[in-house]
């Protein structure tokens, strides 16, 4: 089999599984008793192991296998998670990640993981007294489970009482163990047939593994059920074994005594049921947690991966379709034939829906970048010996795929910087009267035509004098320049090349290259970085990013024969002003608006409009726009209306045009320019 065809699939899926392992391990760390999380982790690890083995990455499979052993003990309540286990598992994940990355880079995915494997084995050892054979688990556990068994029983009280009552009312209770043939391909189907038969003849009280797992073929070769029925054991056995590919069905009659014993499996008389009972015991807790796990599983939507170029093509083809649609609508209104009009209207509706979908395809939630940070912050906090909480909000904020791909590294830099330089050590925080645990807020939100990502820490803040003295010392600025700088300008020095505020160079940040790189990267994405800080209170790094290709709501306006779009997000309202309402102060046109005097901007002058001049009008439509605290009234010729538009770049040749931030294609196929409201307010 040619594995190359599956390699990219393997890589994608491995990355997904590693991510989910990371996330869930972190979750587990905060609530170590939640076995349902262990179940999810176990499943991911198991899938990963299977995939790696299939693809022939033996080292990957071997390490995953060891991790799986540990997890197996944990989910069966034979091992309690502790810090050492977490650290070892995390290290294992890192090693797995490194191997997968090696595979990505065309390597063989081989790595020396013996240290981690030894640790993992050591974890498994103390509680795992059996001889290493898989069956050993069930046999090894009784002596340990003796103490726990009283508290945890394989059937819950309700189920036991049902069984007891059934016997009292003259029904029979069987424990049936069904084994499918080794050669059986569709185990789940056979199991289903068995279940169907059982349900016809009686009531299944409990199955091991759970019915869900059996349906998903998550069992080895055998499964067992407790069945209440009126039929005889022999009859049942014969009928089950009659189903093809079923190797054997072992039917054990249960009486009241043996049912009572289910709750005390450590008693020697219970030997007959013990192996199953032990298994069952392991199953009880997960079953309780199963709804949560199943719920979690359902939330994960199914996806396919698509080459982003194809989306671009799709998008462009769709815009063409749109143009034809408008043309068709025109023709239909001219021809005035009922069925034609109806068809065109229907097509318009369908293409409207299609448009929405096509436009949203490229947008990805920032979550895909954010989700690796909790793990990073955890590790860093440990390394730095600080206590840090990372609070993420707005992870569902959507950004264009291309921006998502690029934004990861700058964010890592800024986060590291906040952890290393921002948040103080525990002692210093206590001294300063702050809570021991520092908080770093990572926020993403839409604002206007931009997405903002903010990293806010409640650390020491930026010391203006220190920044200045270092900048002067490192030759970034002269002392005279520094004296006249505003606080914001001083903070921006952090992003200057060759600047480092760390007293000692750590491997986390502070080589003085990091922030410099951050700024140039973000600038290259068409974004901007800004810093706000309060000494002793904390610092906010704010990244402003454009939505390179996204849908924005805009107000379409006319200037003579030309059409322009103004992003709705920065429009406060629209209004009409009369000539005599415009005041001239110091050569600037101003109007009174809501008790404030705001400047009037002539769009026609700014854009050198060839055929419109508001001076010829007595009354002019104005759009009131806002940038932060500043307002301005923009004079336009005519409002066309509000519409969702696709933002398109003007092309590389015109990459930095003033006033215009991009273009869009209108329904009639014409290009309309999008005005950058920020450029209108000085």
């Amino acid at each position, binding site marked *: 089999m040619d594995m190359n065809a599956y390699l990219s699939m393997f890589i994608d899926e491995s990355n997904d599984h590693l991510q989910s392992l990371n996330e869930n391990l972190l979750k587990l760390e905060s609530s170590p008793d939640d076995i349902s999380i262990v179940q999810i982790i176990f499943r991911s690890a198991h899938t990963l192991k299977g995939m790696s083995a299939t693809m022939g990455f033996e080292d990957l499979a071997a390490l995953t296998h060891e991790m799986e052993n540990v997890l197996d003990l944990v989910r069966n309540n034979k091992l309690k998670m502790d810090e050492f286990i977490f650290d070892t598992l995390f290290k294992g994940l890192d090693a797995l990640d490194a191997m997968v990355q090696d595979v990505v880079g065309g390597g063989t995915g081989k790595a020396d993981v013996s240290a981690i494997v030894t640790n993992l084995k050591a974890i498994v050892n103390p509680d795992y007294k059996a001889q290493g054979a898989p069956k050993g688990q069930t046999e090894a556990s009784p002596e340990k489970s003796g103490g726990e068994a009283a508290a945890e029983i394989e059937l819950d009280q309700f189920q036991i009482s049902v069984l007891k009552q059934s016997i009292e009312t003259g029904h029979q209770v069987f424990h049936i163990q069904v084994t499918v043939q080794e050669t059986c391909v569709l185990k789940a189907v056979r199991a289903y047939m068995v279940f169907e038969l059982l349900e016809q003849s009686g009531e299944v009280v409990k199955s091991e593994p759970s019915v869900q797992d059996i349906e998903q073929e998550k069992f080895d070769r055998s499964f067992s059920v407790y069945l209440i029925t009126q039929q005889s054991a022999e009859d049942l056995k014969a009928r089950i074994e009659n189903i093809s590919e079923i190797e054997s069905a072992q039917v054990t009659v249960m009486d009241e005594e043996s049912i009572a014993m289910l709750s005390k499996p450590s008693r020697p008389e219970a030997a007959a049921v013990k192996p199953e009972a032990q298994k069952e015991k392991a199953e009880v807790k997960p079953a309780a947690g199963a709804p949560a796990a199943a719920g979690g599983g359902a939330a994960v939507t199914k996806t396919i991966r698509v080459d982003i170029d194809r989306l671009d093509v799709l998008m462009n083809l769709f*815009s063409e379709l749109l143009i034809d649609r408008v043309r068709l609508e025109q023709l239909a209104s001219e021809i005035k034939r009922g069925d034609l009009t109806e068809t065109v209207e229907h097509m318009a509706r369908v293409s409207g829906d299609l448009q929405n979908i096509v436009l949203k395809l490229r947008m990805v939630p920032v979550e895909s970048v954010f989700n690796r940070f909790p793990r990073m912050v955890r590790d860093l906090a440990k390394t730095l010996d600080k206590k840090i909480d990372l609070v993420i909000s707005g992870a569902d904020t959507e950004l264009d795929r291309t921006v998502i791909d690029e934004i990861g590294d700058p964010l890592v830099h800024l986060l590291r910087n906040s952890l290393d330089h921002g948040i103080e050590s525990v002692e210093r925080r206590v001294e300063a009267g702050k809570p021991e645990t520092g908080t770093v807020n990572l926020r993403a939100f839409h604002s206007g035509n931009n997405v903002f990502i903010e990293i806010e820490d409640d650390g020491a803040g930026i010391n203006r004098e220190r920044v200045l003295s270092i900048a002067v010392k490192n030759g970034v600025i002269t002392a005279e320049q520094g004296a006249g700088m505003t606080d914001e300008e001083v903070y921006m020095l952090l992003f200057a090349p060759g600047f480092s505020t760390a007293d000692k160079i750590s491997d986390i940040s502070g080589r003085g290259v990091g922030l410099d790189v951050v700024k140039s990267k973000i600038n290259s994405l068409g974004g901007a970085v800004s810093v706000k800080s309060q000494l002793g209170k904390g610092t906010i790094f704010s990244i402003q990013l454009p939505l390179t290709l996204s849908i924005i709501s805009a107000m379409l306006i006319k200037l003579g024969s*030309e059409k322009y779009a103004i992003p709705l997000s920065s429009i406060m309202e629209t209004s009409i002003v009369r000539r005599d309402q415009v005041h001239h102060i110091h050569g600037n046109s101003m109007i009174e608006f809501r008790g404030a005097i705001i400047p009037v901007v002539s769009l026609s002058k700014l*854009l050198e409009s060839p055929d419109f001049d508001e001076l010829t009008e007595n009354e002019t439509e104005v759009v009131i726009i806002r940038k932060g605290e500043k307002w301005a009234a923009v004079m336009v010729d005519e409002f066309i209306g509000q519409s969702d538009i696709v933002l398109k770049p*003007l*092309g590389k040749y*015109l990459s930095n*045009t003033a006033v215009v931030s991009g273009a869009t*294609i209108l329904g009639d196929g014409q290009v309309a320019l999008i005005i950058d409201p920020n450029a209108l307010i000085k």
Partner: protein
Amino acid sequence: MGEELKVIVFGLASEYYGVEVDKVRTIERMMPITRVPKTPAFIKGVINLRGVVIPVIDLRGRFDMEQAEATENSRVIIVAVNDIEVGFIVDSANDVIDIDSDAIDSPPEVIGGIRAKYLRGVAKLNDGRLLVMLNLAEVLNKEEIVQIEQFED
């Protein structure tokens, strides 16, 4: 015998110019152009080329030639060089020919008022016509545009 080049021939004023066929994406009839304010005069604006917004340059303007009204024969040649896609407005575009790269001589200092650095060379065709080969990378040089803008300011 040098390399064989496929060249698209277009007319501008009285001259014939050529660009390599592999740099040309498509040739379009004139279509509505949206003016982009605050750009050099030779940038006519942007067009919608099947869903992609592409800037359009008036080559006459770029080479400081006399302006002319668009005619039936006017065409927009869409070229792609170094990731930059631009449309050229030309008077006509009508031919694809093969020329031998050896037949291209280095350009004399001035041809029809176009500075030599925009030119790759001059090829003599079999019918005696002269074909001016453009150096697209220079024609689309952005630094020079910035200079022009500053000059205009």
